[in-house]
């Protein structure tokens, strides 16, 4: 995605104060204007997809929950929905309502976190502090319902692990009133604050055509006028029983992404109210069978499950060989779908806009880190390796690095070029 243009090259990352996780942008700048951007990802490969293959489906719920600290419920929901599809289980309505409720609370927590980060990136720290203070409302609720603020561990195969008591329902409804007041305040002030407008209006614009061409997902696509939302397009959990709007905007700039997210929070509040008020009585799990018995019944086959994570469409692909461990798990996170729009949006904008343009897609960088290893011996391109070649390349690379470092007597000081 790079262009050969002359000019000063500014490295942004892999360590940079505006990036919470490692990624690297090499910006070619002419004065203050960016003429080219080059993106390098995958500094922090965690090998979760591989690790998942050595664990049972049950253990994998907890492993996959730890892919992300912000959309943890998204990953488990998507995964267990896939396994339930394989097993052909009918999840009770009550469990689906609880999943929906937790999912929407998580969306609010993610969007408020983003609003704070966005405020910080445009140098508006007061917005950051306010947004994160109000985010505590949902974090407290999540802790009260599930016992945890971040990794709720409420999903299990065939249902949920904890019930929602009447008392908790009351608290949720009361807190939603409180939160709604705050959201009205943000909806009123943020898009109308003059300096916020100056920094966000017509910045990092992604047109509808570009968003469609690059398959932008979630709020990024919706802010560019693409009405994509898995909750509406392929309802899961209890969304087919909920009444809600898919929030879109046509401007496609950062201001649109900000307002779309704030309005989505308002929409989430409405869904949470519906779920808390209309939650039906019933079981929490699809079957009283013990988990080991369930896992023993998993048939051969593969399944794709989709989930509308706060950042966009999340896809889990599962392939089962009939044992209690999966044969393959592949995860497509929404950030991966949104990266190309960032590179396009950066070109032609100011250096000063880099942090907010990058943060505008709400990137989850480590989640997108992937390494492909060929096992069948065919070569797909010069950067593709089979396992032996990769091993050899690794040994060579570390040898080179040790040679470079030995000149100063400190192995490892020369960081060299990454593989």
């Amino acid at each position, binding site marked *: 995605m790079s262009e050969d243009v002359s000019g000063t090259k500014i490295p942004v990352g892999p360590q940079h104060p505006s990036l919470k996780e490692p990624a690297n942008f090499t910006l070619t*700048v002419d004065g203050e204007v960016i003429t080219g951007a080059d993106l390098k990802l995958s500094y922090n490969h965690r090998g979760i997809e591989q690790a998942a293959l050595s664990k049972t489906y049950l253990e994998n719920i907890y492993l996959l929950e730890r892919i992300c600290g912000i959309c943890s419920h998204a990953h488990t929901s998507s995964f267990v929905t896939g396994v339930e599809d394989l097993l052909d289980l009918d999840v009770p309505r009550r469990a689906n309502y609880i999943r929906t409720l937790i999912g929407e609370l998580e969306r609010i927590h993610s969007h408020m976190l983003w609003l704070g980060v966005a405020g*910080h990136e445009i*140098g508006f720290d007061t917005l950051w*502090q306010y947004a994160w203070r109000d985010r505590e409302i949902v974090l407290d609720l999540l802790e009260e319902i599930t016992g945890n603020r971040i990794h709720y561990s409420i999903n299990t195969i065939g249902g949920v692990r904890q019930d929602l008591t009447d008392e908790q329902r009351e608290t949720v409804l009361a807190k939603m009133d409180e939160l709604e007041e705050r959201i009205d305040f943000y909806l009123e002030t943020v898009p109308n604050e003059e300096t916020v407008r100056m*920094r966000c209006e017509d910045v990092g614009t992604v047109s509808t055509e570009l968003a469609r061409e690059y398959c932008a997902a979630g709020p990024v696509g919706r802010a560019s006028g693409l009405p994509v939302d898995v909750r509406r397009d392929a309802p899961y959990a209890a969304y087919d029983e909920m009444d809600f709007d898919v929030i879109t905007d046509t401007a496609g700039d950062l201001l649109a992404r900000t307002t779309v997210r704030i309005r989505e929070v308002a929409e989430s509040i409405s869904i949470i109210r519906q779920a808390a008020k209309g939650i039906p009585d019933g079981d929490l799990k699809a079957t009283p069978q013990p988990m080991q018995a369930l896992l023993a019944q998993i048939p051969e086959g593969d399944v794709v499950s989709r989930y509308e994570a706060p950042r966009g469409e999340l896809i889990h692909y599962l392939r089962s060989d009939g044992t209690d461990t999966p044969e393959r798990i592949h995860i497509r996170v929404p950030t991966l779908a949104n990266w190309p729009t960032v590179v396009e949006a950066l070109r032609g904008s*100011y*250096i*000063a806009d880099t*942090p907010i343009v990058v943060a505008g897609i709400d990137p989850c960088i480590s989640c997108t880190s992937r390494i492909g290893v060929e096992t069948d011996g065919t070569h797909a391109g010069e950067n593709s390796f089979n396992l032996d070649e990769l091993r050899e390349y690794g040994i060579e690379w570390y040898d080179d690095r040790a040679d470079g470092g030995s000149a100063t007597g400190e192995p490892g000081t020369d960081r060299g070029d990454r593989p």
Partner: protein
Amino acid sequence: MDLATGILYLLVFPGFAFLFTYALAAEYLDRKLYARVQNRVGPPPLQPLADFLKLLAKESAVPENATARIYKAAPLTGLAGVLTAMLYIPVWSETAAMSFEGDLVVVLFLLSLPSFSLFFGGWYSGNVFSQVGTTRTITQLFGYEIPFFLAAFAPAVAAGTLELSSIVAFVGSNPLHMLVFAPAFVIGLLSLQAKLERIPFDAPEAESELATGALAEYSGRKLALFRLTKDVELVVGAALLSALFLGGPYPVGSIEGVAGAALGIAVFLAKTIAIVAVLSILRGVLARLRIEQVLNVFYRWLVPIGLLQIGIVLAVGLYAEGLL
């Protein structure tokens, strides 16, 4: 003035000891108020001092590709500039510690020194982020200096002198002029905010994009000195605005003796703290502008208003003398 008084002015009051204490106190107030605006608790009163001492104790590294001599000298020149400027600004009475005809120009020059020291220090530190930051520092300097000078000259034109002490005396005896200077005061506040590179005019150091720009490579006592310079500049800038537009020690400027001096200092503290508070709140309620937006604000809005202000001052002067 004998040598003892000179040294007293220079080292104790209103010089180094007073400025050091007051600057750290102002930083505390600034941070505390900023934190309260953001619904945070904020630092304890001695935090700025603790930060300063901690930085003094840290290693102060010089990067390999820095031009060492300039890199090391930069923090000192800026601090020396702002400390000297304070001697010409009236604090306890209408007369400053030192004064001569034209000292306003010297004060304005000395107050620009920190920006230049930041530029030289950052540029010669050999860091890409610093170089982009220093380019912005200089760009911004061209933006705010002209409106700031125009604003500062409005009272000077009204008083018919370039001596700060006489300007303070003039405003003290014609307090209604403070209303005439209101636009210039606003320009002065905004320019000072830009001079100090604070939100919304902190594009040169923009921590989320340039990692503090010119200061990116600085560490230890050199960084401590730069930060102290910013604090002292805040206080001296506030003192200058208070002297030019709020009449300095007015309404107690004419009281003689120790009581008068004590009252004068109290008024000085009240006025400068008020100015610092306004600047802190400004920092709390706005987002950072891009550098070209900063220039837009200063060239499109503040320069014309500054010119208009000079015109108003001239018209008021002619009217007062019965010529209009």
